[in-house]
Structure formats: structure tokens, C-alpha cells
């Protein structure tokens, strides 16, 4: 009788555990990753460079279409890696220069976004700039980007 009780409890517990799903566990994400290269000398006005992801391409109002940004590369670095985690969909990727200290940019990003005036400039001399991509679920696209600064 005691053995039956024990086995009943043990198998009940095991059954309960196996029935427990873990819907919150992290899963693979979709996004874009790659290397970012700088060619040419950094201009004095640019303190850091980042790639930005836009849902719509309107250079006059970047804040409206801004979806994500990469960790900024500090002057005078020449190479870094980036990754954007994105939901499946259609995006534009562009190179952008930060005209202020990146630390200040992140400390005040909420107020910059609210004002719609981002302290960044689109680096429109960059090859591969404003690349359009289509992302599927759990898909990671690898794209290397090069930003050309004028000599």
C-alpha cells in the first residue's frame, strides 16, 4: 500500500512536470548581423558611427522611421561588429554619424526621440547605404557594411 502511494505521488509529480510548458524560454531571434568598416579619416564633427534601421526612408524625419540602432563605434575605430534584433518585416539600413558623445546620446535618447530631432546625420556617401531587406521569422541575415569618409 505504501509503495503504491509513493509511486502514485512520484508519477503524479512527474506527469505534472512533463505537462508544464515553458512558453517564456528564450528562442532564436530574427535580425541582421555583420561587420562595419570605416574607410578614410574620421571628420571632426562625427564622434561615433552607428548603423540605423528604418521602417520608412525619410532623411528629413529620421525619428519617425527609426526602428533600431547598433552599438556606436567610437572615433577613430576602423572596424566593429553589429547586430539588430528585428521582427520579421521590411526595413532599410543606413549608416549614421553621431554628432554628440554617444554616452550623452543614450542617456537622453528618450528626449531626443520625443523631440523628433536626433543628433545624427545620414552618411549618404556610403556605399551600400540605405539597403532594403526582407526578414523572415528566426532569420538572421549577414551583411557587411563599409562607411566611406571623405579624404
Amino acid at each position, binding site marked *: 500500500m*505504501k*509503495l503504491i*502511494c*509513493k509511486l502514485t*505521488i*512520484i508519477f503524479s*509529480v512527474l506527469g505534472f*512536470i512533463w505537462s*508544464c510548458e*515553458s512558453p*517564456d*524560454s*528564450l*528562442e*532564436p*531571434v530574427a*535580425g541582421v*548581423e555583420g561587420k562595419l568598416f570605416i574607410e578614410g579619416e574620421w571628420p571632426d564633427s562625427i564622434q*561615433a558611427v552607428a548603423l540605423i*534601421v528604418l521602417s520608412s526612408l525619410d532623411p528629413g524625419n529620421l525619428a519617425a522611421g*527609426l*526602428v*533600431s*540602432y547598433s*552599438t*556606436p563605434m*567610437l572615433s577613430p575605430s576602423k572596424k566593429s*561588429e553589429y*547586430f*539588430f*534584433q*528585428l*521582427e520579421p518585416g521590411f526595413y532599410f539600413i543606413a549608416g549614421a554619424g553621431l554628432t554628440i*558623445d*554617444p*554616452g*550623452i*546620446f*543614450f*542617456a*537622453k*535618447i*528618450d528626449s531626443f*526621440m520625443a523631440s523628433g530631432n536626433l543628433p545624427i546625420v545620414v552618411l549618404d556617401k556610403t556605399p551600400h547605404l540605405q539597403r532594403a531587406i526582407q526578414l523572415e521569422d*528566426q532569420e*538572421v541575415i549577414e551583411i557587411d557594411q563599409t562607411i566611406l569618409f571623405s579624404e
Partner: protein
Amino acid sequence: MKKVILISFLLSILSAQGSITGSVHRADNGEPLLGVNVLVQNTFMGTTTNIDGQFTIDQLNPGEYTLVISMIGFKKYVVRGIIVSDEISHIDIQLAQDVLSAPHVVVTASRQAQDVMELPVSMSVIGPRKIHDRAAVNLIEVMKFEPGISSVRGQLNIRGTSGYTLGVGDRSLLLIDGVPVLGSGAGNITWTMVPMSEIDHVEIIRSGGSALYGSSALGGVVNILTKNAPTKAETRFRFKSGMYSEPKYKQWQWRSQPGLFNYLDLTHSRPIGKHSAYVRFHKAKSDGYKRQGWTDANNITGKVKFNFGERYNASLFANYYADKTALASQWKNAANPFSAPSGEEDDYTEGTKLHLNGFFNMILSDKTFIKLKGSMYDVWWQNHSATNDNGIDEQKGYGEILISTTLGQSTQITAGLAGQTAKIRAGVYGDHSSLSMAAYIQAQQRIGKKLTLNTGARMETYFVDDEKLDESLAPQIALNFRMFDWLSFRSSVSSGFRVPAIAEMYTRSQLNIFKVEPNPDLIAERSQAGEVGMTVKLPGNKWLSDMTMDVVAFKSTFDQLIEANQNDKGIIHFENITDARISGLEVSLLGAMLNKSLLFSTAYTQLNPEEIDKDGNTIDTLAYRFRYTLVTTIGTRLMGVTATLENRYMSRIERVKLFQENAISGEDKRVPIHIWNASLGYDYRGWDFLFRVENMFQYYYTELERNMGEERHLSLTVSKKI
């Protein structure tokens, strides 16, 4: 519990003082028990049984005494009304096994031996069984199953006090055999150097402990009591070997071979005349579950216990630890969470730590004893990073004198002086020194038969670089009302403080876009804490027995809490920026079912961690705190096989600070934590086998942003005593 008490009176050898002698045996098979603690209640006299289970306590003044006989794994036994005159009193005791295997007498809460039902503050006690059944190599992994305790990337949190402070400035104090082992520079705890195989038990004060233990005990105290060498020669070894599973998603897999880990403990102990000693070697080698997760460590530990007769004894403990460990600040990215960022693949740290501590006990009379403590801590640590090479070299010395005396039959007074000095040379801090001096007093008074009142205070003065930094007074008042043998209530109110660590005041560093700059103007943070709790022990019946339930509600407020904060220029400083309030509830329940063949324990913790303004209004949730935690363990022995199942649930961390969420995309990798562990053990002719799987369902989570939690791993542990 079968018991036989025989009290006989024989002729006294001493004319003015008497003795108590006796023997202790197992109730189930009559074998003598070695190493049983025998204490004379309300005095400092006591001893342990020898290999034949016998003991003698001499030089007792004539009077009526109570003996408390206890040993982990057995039920406590109390013998009252022993008359000592000019004769020898003899008693024989038979101890029944305790299925819950937890210590009944603790020493940390008031620096005196106390029954767990008479504690004035909340305390968890981890006995050797909890460590053995988890084959644990890191104490935090065991402590996480206690109420109110969690960790964020190895940083201990007692009732959410610490959060995550970049690995510096812990708000919990670690003691080994009652002596602090904190590093003075970063103020952090090195858990990997704790000699797990030599732990007798661990006592954790979950409410603030500053009144007795000073700065760093703001959030609580972890006191590791190490084993004494047995009085016969023996050699023990434990070998744990296992492997990490590959990530279940192909996109995350990063190596072709499974990661392995091996841990070896080899201990030899023996008597040396009246004294005893052990030496232990520990080797740890792990590939880790992620790209930069490997470690390679060696640890040598030794302890000598000196017995200079009935009234004098001493202990010397030494621990040398050397390691090389991979250094990883974060994952490569969310698509490659087990890989390291480019350029950090070969980063590592190496270091050595030497910790010596010792004490000398002098029992001046059955009412008074003096304890001298001392310790020395030497740390060398070097960072080998492609971007940021620096190192730390520091030495710390600690000394303490404690006197404890009993006044009448009802009051015990403990007072002491302590001092600590440290010198540190570090690439990121510069060269600094610190000095602290403290005086403390604690009184424990019995009021009637049911009420115990503890009052105390500690005064401490700190100097950094020969300049006075702060002076703090931490008082405490605590009450225990033991209404019945099976029911007690407790309540305490205390103040606490923590002076800033050198690292918090002087760190200057830059990692990528994060700049950390010094803030030498930091001042001590202070707290006021209160709690009300209740412990109930229910005998039960054959279906449900040995039940212990503990319920406690607590509330702490913090002034000038030190946190790493980013200013509007993007520069990180440690600042006295936050006032905070943490309130909560802990409920724990443990017991046995089905004629004690099925054991269970569960602990629920609810926290309300708030950042508040000067008027007490809530501003935000404190970062890196779990609001809800539920841990459950169930175990059984069936046909010689021991089976254990564990579950740990922690709610999603609501706020982080290190890597702010992407405000634009809403990227957020924080999820609740659901971990299942299981183990199967078998004892075959003295060979102890334990198979264990942790995170059995491969649940993926982060405790700290951009740091994946531990992958599923399987292990087999074999241990043997020769």
C-alpha cells in the same frame, strides 16, 4: 524516539567542583556516536563525544544544569535537572535520527549557541545533506533554495538588498568560522573559494546584521562553519564529472564537442596527539556552457584544531586558491547568445587568494569566556584583455577580541572590539588604504520562561587614505516569544550601514561606450529594518509529519543607497542617489510524508522593491530584483535509491540598468525563470553515487542583460570515505 536516561551519583574527585560524564548512542542500532555536541545550557561549558560516544565535562560549580545534546542528522535531546554537587553525574543518551537533517543549535544570530526556535531574527540553516544531495560546487547554488535568497550573475541577494552592482559592494557579509572574508577593494565575495566539501553547515541571517557584524552586513550574514577533523584518521574523496548539453536550437550551437567539467576533492584528516588536522585539495576544470565560460582552478585548504584541555582550544584555517577564468562581459549578440563578442574570445583573468584565519577560546569559568580572532587575506588578480589590462594587489588584516559572560541565570552579555586594515594597489582604483575600528555589545535576556530579549549595538569608524570617512552606530532590538515548544514568534528592529568600497569610490575605466569615473565623495548608505515572524513545528501523523512552517513579513528602508548611475553626460558614477524601500513576505514549509519516506520543502518569497523620493513616494522599481520567487524540493528513498526533484521559479526582473532596453524596437530579452533539476543517488557498500541533471528542460533565460543563463548539464558524483 526511544530514549533511556540513567542518572547515577558517584563519589566526587574534586572537592569544590563536579563533573558530568555520559555516553551517546544511536537509538536505532545502539552504535556509539562520534562528534556529538554536548553543551551545558546557559554556560560556556561543553564538549564533543569521542570515538566511543563518551564525554566528560569537568570543573562545574555545584548547581542544577541542563544539557543540550545535538548533532546534525539527529533530533536534539535536552536533559534537564542534572544536579552537580561534589559528585560525578552520569547520563546515557540515545539519539533518534532526524529525517530533515538540519542543525538545531546555531551561533551566528547572537554570537552564542541558540536553539533555532528561540532565534530573535530570521535565519536559514543549510545542513550537509542539502549540499551533498546537490553535489554542489558553488554555495550560491544551494542558497538559492532558501527563502528570501536569490542571485544575479553570482551576486548574492538576501531579500533583494544587493540587486546587481557590477560585482562590487556586496551588501551581504561572508564569514568563515565567524571571521569576515570579504575582499576590501571591490567588497565582493569569491564564492568559488569556499571549501564546499568541508562545510559542516551554513547559517544565514536574512535580516540585517550590522549591529553585530558591522558594515557589509547591511543585508544579511552568511556564516560558513567548517568541519573539525574527526578524532580518527580518514581519507575522503569526491569526484564530480559531467557535461553540458548542446543548445537545443541549431542556430545557437557553437562547438562540435560537448563541454565537459570535472571537480575533484581529496581530503585527509587525522588526530595529532590531543589535536587534529585535515588538509584538502580541490581541482576544478570546466569548459563552461558558453564560449567564454571556462575555468581552471586549484584550491588547497587546511585546518588544525588545537585542544589544550577543557578550557582552552584554538583553530587555524588556511585556504589558498589559484585560478584562471575566462572573462566575458556579455554575449556576442542575441542571435549568438553562447558566443563571445569579437575581440574578447581570448580574454581571461588569473589570480591567487590566500586566506588565513584562526581563533583562540579561553573559558575563564562556566559563566565567562574570551575569544580572540584574527585573519589575513591576500589577493592578487590580473586581467588579460585585448582592450583593458589591469590588476589588483591587496592585503587585509583583521583582529577581534570578544568576551561573553552570563549574569545570573537569565542574562548573557557579549561585547567585543574589532579592527580591520587593508592596502590596495589596482590599475582601475589607484593605491589606497583603509582602516576600520569597531566596538559592539549584545545582551540576551530571558524574561520568564518564554520570552528572550536581544538588544545590542555596534559603533564603527572608517578611515580611507588616513582620512576619516564615516562613523556609524547600528542598534538592534529583537524579541522571541516561545509560546509553546512547537510555536514561537519573533520580532526585530535594527539599523544598518555600509561604507562604500574602494572600487565604488575610485574606479576609473572605460569599456566600449561606457565610461566609469571616480566619486570620492561617496558616503555610507544606511538602513532601518524591521520584521515580524512565526515558526510552527507540528508533529503530525504517519501521513504527514515533522512539519515546520515559518512565516515572516519584513520591511527595510535605505537612505543614500549607492548605485551605479549614468549622468546626463553618459558617464557612470557610483552615487548616493537612491532612497529605497523593500518590503515583503517569506513563507517556508518543510516536512515529511508517508511515514517519513517522502521529504519536501518549499519557500515562497514576495518582494516589493521600490526606489522612493524623500517623501516616501514611489519613483520606480529597484533594478535587478525578482518580485516573486518559489522554490520547491521533493525527495524520497525507494529501494535504496534516493531521488530528488527541484523546481525554482523567479518572476521576470522588471528593471535593468546596465544595458538599457532598446527604447525604439522594444528589444527585451528578460523572461521569468523556470528551472527543473533532478538527481538519483545510490549508496553501494560505502561508495556513494549521485547522478544529477540541472536545467533538465533546457530553459533559456538571462539574469543579467546579454548573459545567457546556464545550459542543461548532467553529472555523476562518486564519493567515498576510507
